[in-house]
């Protein structure tokens, strides 16, 4: 357990010392989302209709940017051998990497989401639920993403492979997140969608540590 906490602390400290990485990801989030009004026209009604989808899809792509280096950086400098060779369970260490990734990437993205949602004219009654969907859904996103990141260690064009593995896995998260916000805007209860979203994150939590550990052991062979 101490090993996992030490790994979280190390990764958060590294992110803190290299702030340009999260700044780049946040800038991508804002800039990519701001392209949509140019592409589909500035009519407030149209933007309001698609705002949730844009926030979620762009957040997803932004999160992928940080996942690409999550385990590849460890493999490149030899740290992965030390993690796999430690006596602490690799499942726990992989989970610790995801917790750190969530803290250093998802939390800033969640904090920036209201800005992007305002820019896209999201109706006011959708804001609270949008934040809830991000808080409940991003852990699942990071966990499924971690499986893809572990599987693509050592692959050429690992980033493209990562997207191909992860994007289909996270489609359910996207569907229920957008449905929850749409329900809230339409005056319906978003609760069923939020429960399903939380359920998907819990499901990912039960599966991802084992899948990541198996993939990482394979990568060090």
């Amino acid at each position: 357990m101490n090993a996992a906490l030490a790994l979280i602390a190390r990764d958060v400290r590294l992110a803190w010392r290299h702030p340009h990485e999260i700044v780049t990801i946040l800038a991508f989030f804002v800039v990519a989302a701001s392209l949509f009004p140019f592409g589909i026209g500035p009519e407030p009604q149209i933007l309001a209709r698609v705002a949730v989808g844009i926030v979620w899809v762009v957040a997803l792509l932004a999160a992928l940017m940080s996942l690409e280096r999550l385990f590849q950086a460890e493999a490149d400098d030899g740290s992965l051998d030390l993690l796999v060779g430690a006596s602490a369970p690799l499942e726990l260490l992989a989970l610790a990497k995801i917790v750190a990734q969530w803290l250093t990437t998802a939390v800033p993205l969640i904090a920036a989401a209201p800005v992007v949602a305002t820019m896209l004219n999201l109706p006011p009654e959708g804001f609270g639920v949008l934040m809830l969907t991000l808080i409940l859904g991003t852990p699942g996103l990071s966990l499924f993403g971690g499986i893809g990141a572990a599987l693509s260690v050592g692959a050429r064009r690992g980033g493209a492979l990562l997207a191909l593995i992860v994007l289909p896995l996270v489609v359910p998260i996207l569907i229920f997140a957008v449905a929850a916000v749409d329900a809230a805007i339409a005056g319906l209860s978003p609760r069923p969608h939020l429960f399903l979203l939380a359920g998907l994150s819990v499901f990912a939590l039960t599966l991802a540590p084992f899948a990541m550990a198996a993939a990482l052991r394979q990568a060090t062979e």
Partner: protein
Amino acid sequence: MGIASRFEGRELACVRGGRIVFARLAFDVTGGGLLILRGPNGAGKSSLLRVMAGLIAPAHGALIWNGEDADADPVAHRARAAYAGHDDALKPGLTVREHLAFHAALRGADARHLDAALEAFGLTALATTPARLLSAGQRKRAALARLIAAPAPIWLLDEPTNGLDAGAVAKLETAIAAHRGAGGIVVAATHLDFAGAGAATLDLAAMRAA
């Protein structure tokens, strides 16, 4: 690390990418022993060290620790084997001391060996220097200092003298002698003659020809 410790490999075989790297390989090191792995590039020295560390499962054969199959409890085996590979595993943004403290925590050791680890490899003055400012030799020393920061009975060293100057090689020899004196086991793949007293040699090129 009891004096009676004994680390053996029996009938070991390793297959990489469909090619047999070595087969029917055996070794036997007892507490206080040093085993030097020799052989030309590609002879399988690094693969053997990774097998010993539990990072690669052998295609055949077994690692034996004190008469018991190490594969029966892989967690305990990883805890007793400290592996120092080719790569230094240093993060540019972390200081030398932070690397050692993290490594100790990762391996469940407490922080009381940190100062000794820095001292042993002449890193005390560099303790708060970020790894990105270290020279190649200093990086290697920082990587080797992990062996002392998180004590383990078996040291597995892959070309540990790469990039080290004569003074640093002497420090490594001192550290190895101290480890062996305390009943520890050292297995090292190296081209250099170093740390010699009572060392056994395993020539992997001869193994392959056999």
